[in-house]
């Protein structure tokens, strides 16, 4: 486990060194904070995705849940509800949408791919229906502070991300629920036989994913000062990429949140660096795709050498 995390971290460091050599604009405090802030949304979505993938599942609905939670947050703020209540509402919506995913997968016995594919379409559709397709814009400064405020010199979204990771890490490593996430992903049948209450924990895992998507929606809405029903398109792929680059096995049972954070940072640093270097957006897609495959390839090679 340690060796693999080390491999991903090394990848991130090498990437930073290369960019530092290529452009004088990369290694500045302003730019690094910039990257951290830009990475925050994908990093937060990837927390829930890591829980789900660790349990042997997949969640394709995260991007649509970002949009749905975002627009309901926007509507609630525009209706004049206090920000705290609106945030709570958004997080509940995300959690409930995730819970519905989990219940359908667990009680309905359906494959996670199908259920979350359905939710992806339904949540997106609902977001479009409630807004009639239009963005909801302009919020009060108190709410926008979630994205614009700096504590010391650190942007608030970065601190929120750190907080989400700290809590999620504790849940994953220090609680029974966390251990069951690994156990269910490792061997679901054995987990069931050994008395783990899968029917309680599995829906909760998807609820966590919905919840982190909603937290990402809050940061995104504050950042853009706008909630868009078309927001979050393809976020599921970015989150899966961050999780996989971070060394979490798509088969479930193996991986860490630290790895996912590094995975998200690799993607963020790469996008930032390619922008700084003025690389065309078409080439960027090729490079990012190559890095995803390359990272997993290296990971697989390391595993084989150890075995």
């Amino acid at each position: 486990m340690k060796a693999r995390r080390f491999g991903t971290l090394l990848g991130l460091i090498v990437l930073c060194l290369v960019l530092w050599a290529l452009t004088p604009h990369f290694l500045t405090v302003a730019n690094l904070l910039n990257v951290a802030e830009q990475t925050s949304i994908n990093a937060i979505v990837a927390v829930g995705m890591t829980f789900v993938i660790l349990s042997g599942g997949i969640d394709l609905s995260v991007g649509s849940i970002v949009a749905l939670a975002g627009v309901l947050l926007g509507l609630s703020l525009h209706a004049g509800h206090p920000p705290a209540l609106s945030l709570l509402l958004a997080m509940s919506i995300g959690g409930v949408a995730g819970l519905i995913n989990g219940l359908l997968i667990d009680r309905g016995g359906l494959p996670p791919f199908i259920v979350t594919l359905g939710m992806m379409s339904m949540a997106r559709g609902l977001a479009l229906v409630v807004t009639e397709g239009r963005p909801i814009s302009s919020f009060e400064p108190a709410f926008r502070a979630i994205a614009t405020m700096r504590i010391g010199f650190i942007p608030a979204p970065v601190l929120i991300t750190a907080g989400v990771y700290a809590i999620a890490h504790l849940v994953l490593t220090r609680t029974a629920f966390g251990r069951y996430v690994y156990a269910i992903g490792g061997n679901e049948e054995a987990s069931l036989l050994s008395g783990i209450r899968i029917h309680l924990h599995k829906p909760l895992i998807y609820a966590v994913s919905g919840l982190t998507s909603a937290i990402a929606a809050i940061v995104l809405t504050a950042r853009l000062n706008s909630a868009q029903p078309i927001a979050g398109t393809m976020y599921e792929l970015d989150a899966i990429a961050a999780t996989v680059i971070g060394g979490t096995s798509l088969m479930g049972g193996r991986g860490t949140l630290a790895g996912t954070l590094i995975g998200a940072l690799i993607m963020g640093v790469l996008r930032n660096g390619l922008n700084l270097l003025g690389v065309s957006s078409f080439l960027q897609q090729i490079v990012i795709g190559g890095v995803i495959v390359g990272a997993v390839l290296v990971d697989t090679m390391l595993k084989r050498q150890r075995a």
Partner: protein
Amino acid sequence: MMRTLTRLAVVLIAIAAVACNRTANDAAAISAKPAVALVLKTLNHPFFVEMRRGAQEAADRLGVQLQVQAAEREIDVEKQMQIVENMIQTGIKVLCITPSGSREIVSALVKARDAKIPVIIVDTRLDPKTAGDAGVHAETFIGSDNYEGGRIAGQYAITITGGKARIGILEGIPGHETGDSRLRGFREAIAAEKAMTIVASQPANWERDQGFNVFQNMLQAHQDIDTVFAASDLMALGAIEAIAAAGRTGKIRVIGFDALEDAKKAIEAGTMAASVAQFPYEMGKAAVESAVKVMHGEKLPADIMVKLEMVTRQ
């Protein structure tokens, strides 16, 4: 394991060293030229590819270094914001941008203002209220009057139908200033004609395949549609395919917007009635020319309008 890692690291560092060397030389060559950024909505649309060509021509002529960046998808406001943040870090002198969202991009432009980088808006206007509230000011706006374009299309529709038509409209992404203005212009132009009826109006999100599907559905619901106005040519071209699939080519008049190459061919072939031509090449050129003026401290007019033209069969 360590051996593989070491090997990997050595290879990467070697690549970096070579690349670094090259960039150092390049940097020496270009360092004298001031950099202007052109941030587009996307580069997978002929309109923006043309705009880039115009901008590049002006940049080469005027001796500035042009950096063009765009999000992968036109609707990705957050990605465009990231690009703006990243470009600010590279020490550009002027930022030219076609906003993916009239309101959303204001948050990014606040950062440009704080970095004292002047901004030129191209093609899609900022929302004046959001920009005003945030204290964001653009040096100038360069674009065509989309409202006027919509009006020209509406008047043309009246002419070719003799003032009697059942109209289906394909809208762009809802809430986009560009599409909204075109539709407003079109609707207001035909408002006075009692026999010009809009029977359906649906968004097809600027895309060709959605233009096909949405119009196919529209035809199912309204067999009597005889005229289509699409807020962009890609959607119009999709609709033309749908009309062909329904075996009604030539019976339904299609008016588009942008006068893309494919649309001009369709007009020549008679499958499309007309398209409002914009001149993205001129916009890109004007953007860089204006950027250079800003660098020299010149004042620019609030709006620089680029002409519009109705393209019809000769």
